């Protein structure tokens, strides 16, 4: 387990760089992660994805399938990858503060 300090805030992260506790998420976390995820500038579309992932996670305790993410946001798969180059499972979930997905991933 490691600790990350950014803008005077501390975040505990796991070995894969995911937040240890979802409750620790705040917008600074997104700022901190974006560069390692290959994102230059954050826009409203990134935020829309992040907000949906968080809502879904709060309700269901797991990350949604990409299909649901696409349906709710209206973004095609290609566009989701343009927004989050390392993909919806790893990049977008990490930024939204969700834990590392379970299983073969």
């Amino acid at each position, binding site marked *: 387990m490691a600790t990350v300090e950014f803008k005077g805030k501390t975040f505990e992260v*796991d*070995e*894969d760089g*995911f937040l240890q506790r979802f409750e620790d998420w705040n917008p600074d976390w997104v700022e901190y992660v974006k560069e390692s995820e290959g994102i230059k500038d954050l826009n409203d579309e990134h935020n829309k994805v992040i907000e949906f992932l968080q809502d879904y996670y709060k309700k269901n305790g*797991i*990350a949604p*399938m*990409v*299909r*649901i993410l*696409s349906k709710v946001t209206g973004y*095609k*798969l*290609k566009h989701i990858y343009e927004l989050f180059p390392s*993909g*919806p*499972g*790893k990049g977008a979930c990490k930024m939204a503060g969700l834990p*590392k*997905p*379970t*299983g*073969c*991933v």
Partner: protein
Amino acid sequence: MSEQKPVNAADIRAVLERNDSARLRAWLKTCASCGLCSESCFFYLANDNNPEFMPQYKVRKTLGELIKRQGEVSREELEGMKEIAWARCTMCRRCSQYCPFGIDMGLMINIARQCMRTQNVCPERLMNIDQSYVEFGNQMQIPDEEFVETCEWMAEEGQATIKDLEIPIDKQDARIMFIVNSREPKYYPQDIQEAAIVMHVAGDNWTMPSHGWEATNLSMFSGNIGVAGMVAQSVYDAALKLNAQKICVTECGHAYRAAKYEGPYWTKQPNGQAPVEVTHAVALFHEYMKEGKIKLKHKFKDAITLQHPCNLSRSGDLGEKADELMEMLCENFIPMEPHREWSHCCCGGGGFIPMGPDYKRTRMVAGKVKAEQIKKTGAKYVLVPCHNCTDQINDLNKEYDLGIKIVSFKQLICELMEVPPHMQPEEEDE
């Protein structure tokens, strides 16, 4: 957290008896501690030849103890064995090839895992996945309807590339019933789309089942053979119900081993074989290329190497085909040394990736051997026909700064193949 229930030695003995403990005892006695297995093991090599990583030592400290004491061990001892059986061995079976007596140490570690799993001693993330298989039939809690909808969505978006692309669900009498890894519908649906495009362009008669579509079988690695058998059975049942000629497993290593080699044993098939023939994407694509069903615009030009997944090329029969497919697709294929069944495990297998972040450090240390194998080829592209290998080699890429790009066969074929004019969508602005 592990509850402090006393260990039930009878449960452990039941596993030992079921696995013919005479054979296991003979193996343990036959082992002369010659040490020839040591240098075959990437864990041993990557951990400075520490004797605690010798395959024979790992077997003695786990299964050997369980047999000797007939399961009469404490929970603390089991916890110690857990760190050996799961975090120091991927059951890649490379050591068996170097043992002068042919002792299958990978299998012995697997039986040790089965013993421990009866006591709920198992890396937690891996153990939790068993429950998802029971409730949903797959490892990622995906309802079947959402799987089907994802396929429909991928067919629709894929029509931008291939006119009339279809992903047929529950089609009767197909030649190929294709099954996938949960991560594909859940996080990487483009994988399904690419496989669909290749099969469509090849003109195959194929389908996917709406239930029994999950190819993975992580319970084989958690040691829960009851669940592993249930997962294998639902794949066989789907193929029988649809009257498919063959079950084809996606580019995944352990799923092939589970469906083709282990599944028939778990599900007690009378002739020891799967009720429907099991094949793999590597063999399917090999056939398409060989028979000219897929034609290329040109071969891949850059230097590229191939990761031989242990469960395809060592525990399975696909080493030669994978190499031949590379030759058919690439101009400059540089095999790793050693390769095929002699290649090292990348340390993503045996449950390591799903064991999660707690085991990542161990994975990165032991993966050094694979990182060096890749580096030595000088290739900047690595073809990886397995999901766990893909994730591990991606992590190794970052850890050891390899500067490589990882591709799958379907991805490469989609990039290189000729699409017949009647399948090309009408010109319009995207």
